[in-house]
């Protein structure tokens, strides 16, 4: 018979993987087959790459690992990352803070929201990367410019999630707090904010993912002293194992940042019962 299980879908329609539940879950058939699938993929990669005449465009998996090891031992690599992570950090922190604060304001006041919503809709539909040349014209390519790019990528997502989270605290609940004579500030702290927390935490998580994307876009589009410089160099020199390795480290960084935010989300929301 047809098997229909349960999958979680967040507000943006993107499916999130179910949270891991300890080591025992590693033995579940789903996990085992999944791991085997990745392993098989790597084997196919290796074999296919070996069958090629030259590996300029498509290095073997093992040579990528070799390149990775070489990079890790190269101080220039870590230097490049440091140069990249500083603007990432500034952009990320400011986008999270500004996103939540402005989101709260816009969410609480229906009037402000209505005034602002055409712009939000516009920027929501716009690919944020096209704003990068504007940032360059405005700020050049210094730390401020680079942080701004990361900021722009993270900000909209966090703000939007926060607004939605606050606005959807039903009117009934607001009426209820007022009927008990609860002051606005208290109602906000005890009812609205906790109620909006899931949406806000999800927004922070997705926003972090976007900030990482912003970081990579920043590296690729702005002449840089960071990881982008490495990318350009290896591509120009056709050193594909190193290029793939750098891309791999970017991917790992992104996954790690998301994993951390997911942990944080689960921790903050630990009183929530999964429905």
């Amino acid at each position, binding site marked *: 018979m047809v098997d229909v299980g349960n999958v979680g879908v967040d507000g943006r329609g993107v499916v999130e993987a179910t949270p891991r539940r300890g080591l025992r879950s590693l033995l579940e058939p789903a996990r085992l087959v999944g791991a085997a699938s990745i392993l098989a993929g790597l084997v196919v990669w290796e074999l296919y790459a070996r069958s090629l005449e030259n590996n300029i465009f498509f290095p073997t998996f093992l040579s990528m690992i070799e390149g990775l090891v070489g990079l890790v031992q190269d101080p220039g690599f870590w230097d490049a990352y440091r140069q990249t992570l500083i603007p990432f950090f500034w952009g990320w922190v400011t986008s999270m803070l500004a996103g939540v604060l402005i989101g709260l304001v816009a969410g609480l006041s229906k009037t402000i929201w209505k005034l602002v919503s055409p712009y939000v809709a516009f920027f929501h*539909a716009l690919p944020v990367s096209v704003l990068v040349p504007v940032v360059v014209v405005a700020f050049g390519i210094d730390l401020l410019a680079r942080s701004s790019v990361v900021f722009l990528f993270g900000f909209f997502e966090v703000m939007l999630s926060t607004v939605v989270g606050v606005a959807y605290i039903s009117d009934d609940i607001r009426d209820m707090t007022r009927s008990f004579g609860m002051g606005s500030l208290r109602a906000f702290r005890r009812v609205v904010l906790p109620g909006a927390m899931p949406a806000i935490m999800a927004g922070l998580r997705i926003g972090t993912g976007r900030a990482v994307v912003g970081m990579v876009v920043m590296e690729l589009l702005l002449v840089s002293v960071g990881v982008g410089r490495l990318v350009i160099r290896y591509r120009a020199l056709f050193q594909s194992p190193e290029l793939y390795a750098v891309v791999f480290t970017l991917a790992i960084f*992104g996954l790690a940042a998301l994993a951390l935010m997911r942990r944080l989300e689960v921790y903050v929301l630990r009183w929530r019962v999964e429905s």
Partner: protein
Amino acid sequence: MTDTEQRTDPPVSLDTAKPGVVSRIWEWLARYRVQVLGIVIGGVLWEIAGRAGISPALPPISAVLAAGGELWSSERFLDAAYTTATSILIALPPSLLVGVALGLLMGLFRPVEWIVRPYVNASLSLPLVAIIPIILLIFGLSQTTIVVVIILYVLPVVMVNTFAGVRSTDHDLVEMATSFNAGRWLTIRRIVIPSARGLTLAGIRIGVGRSISGGIVAEQVVGVLGVGGLVQRLGGAFAVEALYAVILFIGAVGVASLALINRVEQRYQIKEV
């Protein structure tokens, strides 16, 4: 009851022979009057700030629209728009079809899900932009790079949402079908696939959005093709007014395509009882 209701509509002339379209536009403006006000205020502020010369990066909106008028009919713009449009139109249909098909397979057959899931999850969790240098290395400064990037952007999203749609099928309906001895194929056709419609369309909507953003960011990295390339070049030449004009154009296309797909989604929404 209607006499005591607050009339929030603006006074409309008693000349009821007005054509339906005008009164409909009037009605729409009235309903969204705060938003319209917001747009107007924003536009005014923009013009003032631009004229005041706060920053070379902020030209007045009048200058932007003037540059836009020139630009939007120029050959270089139309050329670029055509390139971008063709990249998207080449990449989207196969991505959507394969994405929905794979999503259905994932949803219906657990083994398929187990095998494919790690790849799909990975591509949604990591910064997909990072793959662009590699695609660029392989396919060079060509439209093929753009098309491949778009496919990689769209495919996982459509797959995962279609999969979720299949899994969202109401168990009760499946149980009912079993009680009537319906075969597997009938259940899939009459129950699972219609159930999946909502989330599948959401996935398509997100996929279309990503095709635009993925395509443009790839073009920006490539630098010489399409609207993305145009944006980079205008920025490099400090042609700010034209740059803004192109950005407005891109935003407008994004908003319009989103609205269009939303319409389709509404029409096919499963009417909850």
